[in-house]
Each structure stands twice: as structure tokens, then as C-alpha cells.
């Protein structure tokens, strides 16, 4: 048997020719810092050093390591952290941390070579971008990664100081952080899912006996709904648990199954045809692709809708627009826009590890919602809520896709029950990129009519969402809460077809709405011969954005903006602006507990950190209240046994958790004072530290209360501006989603500078300026990272990301990271983040969430910049080279 050295220790290698190094590391040697993400050499999460050289362990045959020395992330920080690790920590070059081990391995190797060759010179962005081009980070921490790599190479982290604004950073840069995919119980089985090869079929028979007869297969379960139908390729049919993955795969292959294939229709365009086969008949119901409650709506064939509750004098809007069109009113701006489907692409896939101890269920889940999930599971599986324990210590990204009770979780529970053993279910990348949800695609028609007085008179928006077998997308409706007009006709439709269902994704409905609306506003400004920011200042009455417009007008690049279409030559530069908002949401019933245990202060609530940094926000908030350092606070999150905490979605965690923390801190201070035998030493610079250290064990809790409306400076809930439907909507959010909509609009105004290569159809984003109003910034590096990450995801949406399917079979073709293209580090522009910290004084602590609002206007601002550069409107994203070239060609022939 051959062997290799792993972080200095000799270990034997498996004889199996198919064994890959990544599996040896993770499964045999428990070196779980190395992550498996794409399995295809694209993302670099599995990178290790082979005799000092970075290689991807997901493709490296274990045999190829024979006689060699392998260094994993665990071997890099031991015994002392490498300067690169310290730089990643200090400059917050990470969010969820799932990609971090791979980046660390590559960046340390780069650092050592660079320093050997160039001393302490600073490598350029281009050099760093090329060196790290074999790594992907979906949280898009690239901006800070650039900084960390260049500063570490310049020798700025050679010293002993180890500090980070993110409390768990050390675990993430050393590979110690355990994610759901890393959990391993004794006797744990592996669960795999059998998926439909047909876009529409009825399963007429299914026989598990041959699967169960295979040694090592411990359970096989049926996952079909009562109608026994599957409606998209990849829909789950059955699942198997076995002692390992390959045995489980054999089990799946052995299941005998008979299909009766039914007519299907692929894609929204085909599904709209009158002759298209119906996707849903009988009692079957579509999935909910949004966060909102599904309301009743009309169906016509495969088209559901209209839902138009957010309209306002819609008949007037229609009549005015029709009249303007008939009269050839030059002020009328109309256009049709198309946005593509965007996959969340969290680097940690959907994963769950379920384990029963009697009737107690412990389940590790990669989830955005530990607390709510426990309740949902208890209900669904008829368990006592007290007996369901959800754990999510670290979560490798979510972006909206992990907010509900997911299939992976239900399957793990069912298999664990059936096999009477712990079961792990981890989606493969192709499952993740096909059946695990996505931002629905859309076709949006906009008509925008300025009145003779220059005010916005009427707006009409009709959106057709493409969410496969999912419905309830709201896109047009969101246009009610920005740019007040005399009349608005806002209509949403869903078109169902035999494709997997969509799911909420960062600011659901926001980016496509803004893509269409903000380009129409840009067009209107051109028609009215106004500066686009001047027009927005006139039409957009929101106070927060008014301040951001002032900031944007002062930007150098904006002041030197050139008129569109006067530019010639291969490379053309342009600048564009767009605005966006999101609702300020907070979760009712959020509770926090502050306690002193053994002289240390600890804060707990059942929230989870999906990379947004809530763990650090909690530590910072409590530390600030008591004049301590963040590391002096123990933060307990990621467990459903803690006091009720919020779901990480709708940018609500900060605004839900910080106010009760401040209240709890006040309570705890009172208790400490009361119990203190004597007052702190006069002049002590750490009065609370002393009191806490001397205090007996104590515990206080606080619950999130309503905001103080008197401090809101005339701002109210955005929904209050939306008439009765706003009131109903707000009530429903409270009632069914336990979310309150607070006063004020989290806002963002972005200015994007691009350079278009008209020969190769390539758009280079030179710089993005983002002005953000989300109140006081709780932690500047973390907030900056969130803002930059949102922008880069928005640029991916605008330029690269597109799900592609086979139009006949409904097979998802972009099921790997090679074909589903997310931004890499070298695609990162310079990012200038401006925080306007006013506007949320009525919120205790003064801050609301940033994650969604920062991504809403990006694609729109980019499109306006491209228009400014080439004088042609990109009406369809992503603006890939094929689309940009065809736009240019049409433009030149027109």
C-alpha cells in the first residue's frame, strides 16, 4: 500500500484507482478544512499543496499523491498563523468562509514565492487577480481579498498581532470551522436522491426491494407526492441511505421504476402558447417562489395572474398611456426588458445531517433559519418542539435559498428515521445548480409617462416571471414604493413550465424591477433633456435617497459624464446611475439573553451567521455597551435551543437583534449595579469589566419591541404609502411571516463606470460607487464587505450569470460551475462605498440591514452605464458577449 505525508504525518492511501485526494482528506483523515464545492477544478475550494505546489484535490487521483507531501489549510496555520492568515483576518477577506481555506492555501503559496522573488514589494491587482483566478467566492469577498493579499505580501502582517473584526475569523482561516457538510457521527450513513429523467411523467410503479437487497443499503424511501407525478427533470422521486456514497449510488441505480411519460413544456415562452400542455392539472399546486404568502389568483393555461394589488388608479394609468401612445407623445417612454434566471450558488450546498436519539432529533442544517426551522420540523414530523434541536454553527452562504424547510432536510430526517441511524444528505453541485432554487427570470414591459408639468404622471409595469413550477413572484408590485405617480398600473404574472421552481434570492423581485424601471427613468431623463440624477431628485421623494443623490452628484465621474453615443473607437467608456430601496424589516418576538457565567459575559439568540457577520455584530454591540473588547463576549448562536432569533433573510437580523441587545444590556447593568457589593473603583477605566468579573452568575432577557415613532422624523413604513393594500400586506407579514415593516426606506444609489470593448463584446466594470443609507454602521469592515459582495453578485447577474436549459428535454445544462459563470476576483471593479448614516434614529442602535438593498440597483446602473457608452440600450441581461455584439450590430445597421 502506498502512502503520503499529510501536514507532516505519514498516512496510507487507498488502493482504489478512483479514489480522489479530496475524499481521502475529508472522509479518511477528517481534514475537513479542505472543501468540496464544484468537483470540477473551477472553484478552488479544495486546493491543497502537493510538494508545495497548489493543486485541486477534487480532481487529483489519490494515487498521484504517493510518496509526496500534502499540505492542507490545517497544516498552514500550525503552529503559528501565516501572515496571509493574519491579513485575511484583519482585513475581513471572508464572509461565510467556505471558500476561505482554498484561498488561504493558494494565497500563502503565492505570498511565499512573491516575497522570495520581490521582497516586500506590493503585487498589483492584475497579478493578484491572475494568481487567484482558480478560486471563486460567492459571498464575493474579493475586494477585501485583494487588500489582504497585497498587504501581506508587502510585509504588513509579519508581526505577532492577530486581530479581526469578525469574531470567528480564526476558525475560518485555519479550516477549524465546522459546517454542516463536515459533521460526522459514528455510524453515519450517506443519503442520495433519485431524480426524474423526465420533464413530466407519472410513476406507475416503484420497487425498492432490489436496492434494499444490496449489502450496505440501509433505507430506501418514496418521495413522491400523492399524485405520483414529477413535473421537471431532477424532481425527487426516492432516496436511499447507505454506508457510503458509492453504495448509495448503487442503491439508487437498483430501484426499479416505471414511468408513464406525459406531455411537457419547457420555458416560459413555450408555456405561454395557447396549445402548450398544462403543467398543473387537478389538485397539484405549484411551489412558492417567493417569501410572501401565496394568494389566490386566476389561471389561464400556464399563466397565473394578473396580480395587481399594488396598482393605484390602474385604469387611469392605462388610459393615459394608451392616449399618449396613440398621440405619439414624445415624452412617453416604453420598453421591454428581460432578465435571466440567477442561481444562488452558495458554495456550501444544501446539506443536513439528521440523528435521532430515541424521539429526540438533532439535525445539523445549512440553514438561514434555525429557530423557525425547528418549529416547522416539529410540526411536519409530529415531534415535540422541545425534542427538535437544529444546529448551524457555520453556514456556507444562503442568499435566500436556505430560508425554508428544504428537501435535503426532510430527506435526511426521513432516512434517519427509516434506517435508524444518523444520515447525511449533501447536494451535489449539479443538484445545487438545478433543483435548489434560483431568482426567477422575467420579461418586463414598462411604460412611463411624464406629465406636461414634468412630474411623473403614470407608470405601467407588466412582468411575466419565469419560475418553472414555482409561482408568486412579485416584480412590478415593488414599483409602487418608489417614484410616486398620479397613477400606476402594476401587474405581475407567473408563467409555469416543466422546470424546477425558483426561490427567494437576495432582494426578491428587486433587481429585475430596478433593471426595467431605472432604465426607463434614464430614458425619460434623456427625453426631457435632464441629468438623470436631477430627474430622480425631482421624482423620488424619499429623504434617504435625496441625500444619496446629492452625494452622487458630487462624484467626479458623474460631473464629467459625457453625452452618450458621441463615442467611437474600440473601447468606450460610460457612466450610469440607478437607485434602489428595500423594506426595513424586523422579526417579531426576537429575544436575546445576556448572561454572566463564571465572570464572563455571554450573549445568545437563535440566529445564524451565513456570512453576514451577525455573530460579530452581536459581540460588537454588547462590547460597546459595556466598554469591553469583542473577544471578551461569548456569542452563542446557531442553535434552535437558544432564545427565539430571526431568520437571516429580508436583511432583518441586525435590526431584529441589536435593539433587544441594547435593552438587555441596560437590564444587565442594572442587575450588576444592584448586586455589586461596592461601586467600581473610582477612575477605573473598565468599570463593567470589574463588575462582571466579580459578579455571581446572572441572566437577563429582552424582547424586540416596537420602534419609537416619535424619532422617525416623519418617515413611516413604506407600506403606509401604498394605500389599503399596503396595510393588508403589512398585516399579513406580521401574521404569517412574523415580520414587521418599520419606518423608513433602506436605500442605495449606485454609480457605475464601464468600459465596453466593442470588438470582443466585453464589458469591464471600472469602478462602482455605492451610496447606502441603512442607518448607523454597526461594523464598518463587515458592512463594507456586505456592500461590495452585493455589488459583485449584482454584476454577475448583469454580465455573466445565466441558467441554460435544453429546450426539448428540460435538462439543466448549466449544472456545473464551469458553465454557470459567477464572477471571479479579477472581475471585481474598484468599489467605493459611501455610508449615509442618518435616517434610522428611531431604531434602537440606529442600524438596519444592508444585504439586499445593496444589490437592487447594480444591474440597472450597469445597463445605464453601457447605454451611456454605446448609445444602445441593453434590454436583456446577462449582457454576455453574444448579446452585446448583437446589440452593437443591430445598432449599427439601424
Amino acid at each position, binding site marked *: 500500500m502506498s502512502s503520503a505525508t499529510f501536514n507532516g504525518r505519514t498516512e496510507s492511501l487507498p488502493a482504489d484507482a478512483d479514489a480522489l485526494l479530496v475524499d481521502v482528506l475529508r472522509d479518511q483523515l477528517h481534514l475537513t478544512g479542505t472543501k468540496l464545492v464544484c468537483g470540477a477544478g473551477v472553484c478552488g475550494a479544495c486546493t491543497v499543496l502537493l510538494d508545495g505546489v497548489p493543486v485541486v484535490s477534487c480532481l487529483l487521483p489519490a494515487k498521484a499523491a504517493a510518496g509526496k507531501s500534502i499540505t492542507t489549510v490545517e497544516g498552514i496555520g500550525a503552529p503559528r498563523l501565516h501572515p496571509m492568515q493574519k491579513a485575511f483576518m484583519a482585513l475581513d477577506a471572508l464572509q461565510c468562509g467556505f471558500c476561505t481555506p482554498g484561498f488561504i492555501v493558494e494565497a500563502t503559496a503565492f505570498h511565499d514565492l512573491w516575497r522570495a522573488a520581490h521582497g516586500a514589494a506590493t503585487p498589483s491587482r492584475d497579478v493578484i487577480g491572475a494568481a487567484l*483566478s482558480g478560486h471563486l467566492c460567492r459571498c464575493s469577498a474579493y475586494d477585501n481579498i485583494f487588500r489582504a493579499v497585497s498587504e501581506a505580501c508587502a510585509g504588513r502582517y509579519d508581526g505577532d498581532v492577530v486581530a479581526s473584526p469578525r469574531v470567528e475569523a480564526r476558525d475560518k482561516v485555519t479550516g477549524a470551522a465546522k459546517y454542516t457538510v463536515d459533521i460526522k457521527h459514528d455510524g453515519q450513513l450517506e443519503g442520495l436522491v433519485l431524480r426524474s429523467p423526465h420533464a413530466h411523467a407519472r410513476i406507475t410503479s416503484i420497487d425498492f426491494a432490489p436496492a434494499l437487497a444490496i449489502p450496505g443499503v440501509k433505507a430506501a424511501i418514496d418521495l413522491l407526492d400523492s399524485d405520483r407525478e414529477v413535473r421537471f427533470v431532477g424532481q425527487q422521486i426516492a432516496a436511499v441511505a447507505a454506508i457510503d456514497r458509492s453504495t448509495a449510488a448503487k442503491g439508487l441505480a437498483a430501484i426499479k421504476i416505471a414511468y408513464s411519460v406525459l406531455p411537457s413544456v419547457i420555458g416560459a415562452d413555450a408555456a405561454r402558447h395557447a396549445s402548450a400542455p398544462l403543467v398543473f392539472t387537478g389538485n397539484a399546486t405549484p411551489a412558492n417562489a417567493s417569501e410572501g404568502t401565496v394568494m389566490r389568483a386566476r389561471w389561464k393555461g400556464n399563466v397565473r395572474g394578473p396580480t395587481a394589488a399594488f396598482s393605484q388608479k390602474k385604469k387611469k394609468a392605462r388610459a393615459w398611456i394608451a392616449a399618449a401612445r396613440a398621440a405619439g407623445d414624445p415624452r412617453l417612454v416604453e420598453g421591454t426588458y428581460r432578465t435571466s434566471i440567477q442561481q444562488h450558488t452558495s458554495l456550501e450546498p444544501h446539506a443536513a445531517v439528521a440523528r435521532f436519539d430515541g424521539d429526540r432529533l438533532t439535525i445539523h442544517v445549512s440553514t438561514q433559519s434555525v429557530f423557525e426551522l425547528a418549529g416547522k420540523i416539529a410540526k411536519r414530523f409530529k415531534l415535540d418542539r422541545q425534542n427538535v434541536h437544529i444546529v448551524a454553527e457555520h453556514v456556507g452562504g444562503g442568499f435566500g435559498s436556505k430560508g425554508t424547510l428544504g428537501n435535503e432536510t426532510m430527506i435526511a430526517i426521513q432516512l434517519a428515521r427509516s434506517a435508524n441511524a444518523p444520515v447525511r444528505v449533501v447536494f451535489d453541485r449539479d443538484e445545487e445548480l438545478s433543483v435548489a432554487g434560483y431568482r426567477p427570470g422575467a420579461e418586463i414591459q414598462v411604460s412611463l409617462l411624464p406629465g406636461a408639468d414634468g412630474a411623473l404622471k403614470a407608470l405601467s409595469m407588466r412582468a411575466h416571471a419565469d419560475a418553472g413550477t414555482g409561482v408568486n413572484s412579485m416584480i412590478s408590485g415593488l414599483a409602487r414604493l418608489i417614484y410616486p405617480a398620479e397613477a400606476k398600473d402594476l401587474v405581475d404574472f407567473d408563467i409555469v413550465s416543466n422546470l424546477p421552481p425558483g426561490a427567494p434570492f437576495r432582494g426578491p423581485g428587486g433587481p429585475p424591477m430596478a433593471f426595467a424601471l431605472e432604465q426607463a427613468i434614464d430614458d425619460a431623463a434623456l427625453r426631457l433633456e435632464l441629468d438623470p440624477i436631477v430627474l430622480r431628485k425631482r421624482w423620488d421623494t424619499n429623504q434617504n435617497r435625496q441625500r444619496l443623490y446629492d452625494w452622487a452628484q458630487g462624484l467626479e465621474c458623474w460631473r464629467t459624464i459625457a453625452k452618450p453615443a458621441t463615442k467611437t473607437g474600440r473601447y468606450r467608456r460610460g457612466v450610469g446611475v440607478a437607485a434602489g430601496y428595500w423594506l426595513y424589516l424586523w422579526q417579531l418576538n426576537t429575544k436575546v439573553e445576556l448572561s454572566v457565567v463564571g465572570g464572563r459575559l455571554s450573549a445568545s439568540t437563535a440566529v445564524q451567521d451565513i456570512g453576514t457577520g451577525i455573530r460579530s455584530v452581536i459581540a460588537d454591540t454588547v462590547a460597546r455597551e459595556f466598554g469591553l473588547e469583542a473577544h471578551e463576549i461569548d456569542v452563542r448562536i446557531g442553535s434552535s435551543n437558544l432564545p427565539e432569533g430571526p431568520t437571516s433573510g429580508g436583511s432583518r437580523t441586525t435590526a431584529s437583534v441589536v435593539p433587544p441587545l441594547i435593552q438587555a444590556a441596560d437590564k444587565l447593568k442594572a442587575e450588576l449595579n444592584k448586586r455589586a457589593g461596592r461601586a467600581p473603583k473610582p477612575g477605573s477605566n473598565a468599570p463593567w469589566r470589574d463588575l462582571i468579573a466579580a459578579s455571581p452568575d446572572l441572566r437577563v432577557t429582552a424582547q424586540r419591541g416596537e420602534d419609537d415613532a416619535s424619532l422617525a422624523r416623519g418617515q413611516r413604513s413604506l407600506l403606509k404609502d401604498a394605500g389599503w393594500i399596503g396595510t393588508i400586506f403589512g398585516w399579513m407579514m406580521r401574521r404569517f411571516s412574523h415580520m414587521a415593516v418599520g419606518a423608513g426606506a433602506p436605500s442605495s444609489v449606485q454609480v457605475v463606470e464601464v468600459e465596453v470593448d466593442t470588438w470582443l463584446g466585453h464589458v469591464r466594470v471600472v469602478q462602482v460607487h455605492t451610496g447606502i443609507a441603512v442607518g448607523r454602521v454597526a461594523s464598518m469592515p463587515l458592512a463594507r464587505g456586505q456592500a461590495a459582495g452585493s455589488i459583485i453578485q449584482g454584476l454577475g447577474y448583469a454580465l455573466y450569470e445565466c441558467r441554460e436549459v435544453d429546450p426539448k428535454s428540460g435538462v439543466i445544462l448549466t449544472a456545473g460551475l464551469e458553465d454557470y459563470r459567477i464572477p471571479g476576483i479579477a472581475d471585481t471593479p474598484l468599489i467605493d462605498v459611501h455610508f449615509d448614516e442618518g435616517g434610522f434614529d428611531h431604531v434602537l442602535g440606529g442600524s438596519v440591514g444592508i444585504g439586499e438593498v445593496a444589490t437592487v440597483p447594480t444591474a440597472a446602473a450597469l445597463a445605464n452605464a453601457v447605454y451611456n457608452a454605446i448609445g444602445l440600450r441593453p434590454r436583456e441581461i446577462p449582457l454576455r458577449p453574444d448579446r452585446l455584439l448583437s446589440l452593437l450590430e443591430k445598432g449599427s445597421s439601424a
Partner: protein
Amino acid sequence: MSDQTSSFPAEFRAAGTDLSERRRSGVSRGAIVDIDVASAMTEITWDETGAGHIGAFVTIAAIAADARIALNYPAFSAAAAGLATPQIRNVATIGGNLAQRSRCWYYRNPHVACLKKGGPTCPARDGNHLYGVAFDLGPCVTPHASTMAAAILAYDGTIVTTSRPMLQIRNFLGDGSSAQDNSLVPGELITTIQMPPPVPEAGFYKRAISRTHAEWPLVELVTRLSIADGKVRTASLVAGGIAPVPLRLSGAEKVLLGSAISASTIGDACSAAIAAAKPLPMTVYKLQLLRGLMHDVLGRLESNP
């Protein structure tokens, strides 16, 4: 699975950067034959004519880092430096790069039948061929995957295999009329790539992609050119990503030979390059990209004749 193995051919394995992915997905299931690396296969040697002999087991990174290769075969060197990712280049071999299988998203999907897997038709042809060919030369509409093959074709290199000592690269690749990725027969191993004696000339490699790095080329262009007295004396242009095999742009070469490089010759060369194109509904843009690449590369020579 073992009972199915017999119907799949045995495959050599070099670094496995292509093969491992196909085995994980189940597309390839034959026996694995790990290549027994003879020492000659890991070296670059130079003969008395100055020609380079590159062992099939030499890594892409080693080729990209080799100074003599960069000097003698600049376009070949740049092609190596420009493909895949640093981690892949560190282990991927040139033999494996030439013999790698198609990246077609139908071919790589284990649940879909296609010509390259012995199926009856090419599902991309009437399906989604966004990354397909714009020169429709054969039954299969996916472009050839190998960047290095395009570069070697531009140099008229020769492949040495265990059964064929002098296999011209164009015969190795074929003319695109078969669904096979190359003309190797089972058990035939590439041992060396023989480059021609170097000549003084300029060489370029450029690819068009949507992002900045680490993306398969939409179209790539390998160019070798020598200019004397303001006139093009030799020209060799090969486009990849656009046809079932890397495509020698002989029409464009003819236009260039003997002329000065000017805006009008570049335009004529572009027209000649795409004269025989047969784009598919979704691949017309690749012809625009090819023009763009030619303008980019030839344009660099325009001002300094």
C-alpha cells in the same frame, strides 16, 4: 458498476484533471490505466536543428514557464499560460490536454445520450448550442476543447505515439467530420510533441471570454507572423472554440501573405477567414468574435511594419 465497465473502453490517466471529472459524474467508466511515466515523457529537449521535443507528461505550467519555449514558440507558450487555472496548469499534462474529451454540456451530462457517447444524434444541434461551433463541419456541433492543439496546429507540429512515430497534428485532429475528439485508437499513447525548428517571427495567443480569467474560450486565436520590408512573409492563423477541430484560417493567411498589414488587409483577412463559416442559430456571435480577435492581434502589427 463493474458489470458495465466492460462496455466502456479503458482510458489512460495522466494528471486526471479531465478524466476525474468524467468518472465522478459517471460519463466514463472503463478501466483506468495510469501512465507509467518514462523519464523522457517529463522533459523538454532540443535537437540539433533547434527543434523542441516536448514529453507528453510535461505540465502546462512547465511549458508556460520555459524560457526557451517562450523565445522559440511564443504563441504556443502564451497559449499554455492562458488556459484553465493556475492549479490546473500545475498538474495538467500536454498529452492529456491534446487527448482530453469534449466539454460539451450534453456530452458531460451522464443522463443525456449524444454522438460522442455512441448515441444516435447530437442533441446540441437542435437544442441549446450557445457555445457550439460556427463552422459546422460534421455531425457534432461542439468545438474541440484543446487550446494546445490549436497552438500546435499553428506550428504544424507532429505527435509521436506508441504506434505512429510521425502523426501530423492535423491528422491527429481530423477534419471535424467525425464525432471523435481525435484519431487515437485504444491503447495508443502520445509520448512526445515535436515542434518544428524555430524561425524568427512574432507570435500571439488571445481568447475571447465573458469574464477576465479562467473561462473556456468562446473563440481563441493563435497567430504566427513574420514581416520583412513591410510585407507579410509567413502567416499562420488558427482559431479554436469555433469548429469541431481547431481551424487553420488559410483564406486569411493567403490574403495576408505578401501584403502590408493595413486596415483594409485586416478587413479582407477577416472576410476570408469567415467565408466558409456555417454558423448555427445561436453561434453567429462567434464570427464577430473571430473578427474582433483578428483585428486585435493583426492591429498590433499594423503600425510597426
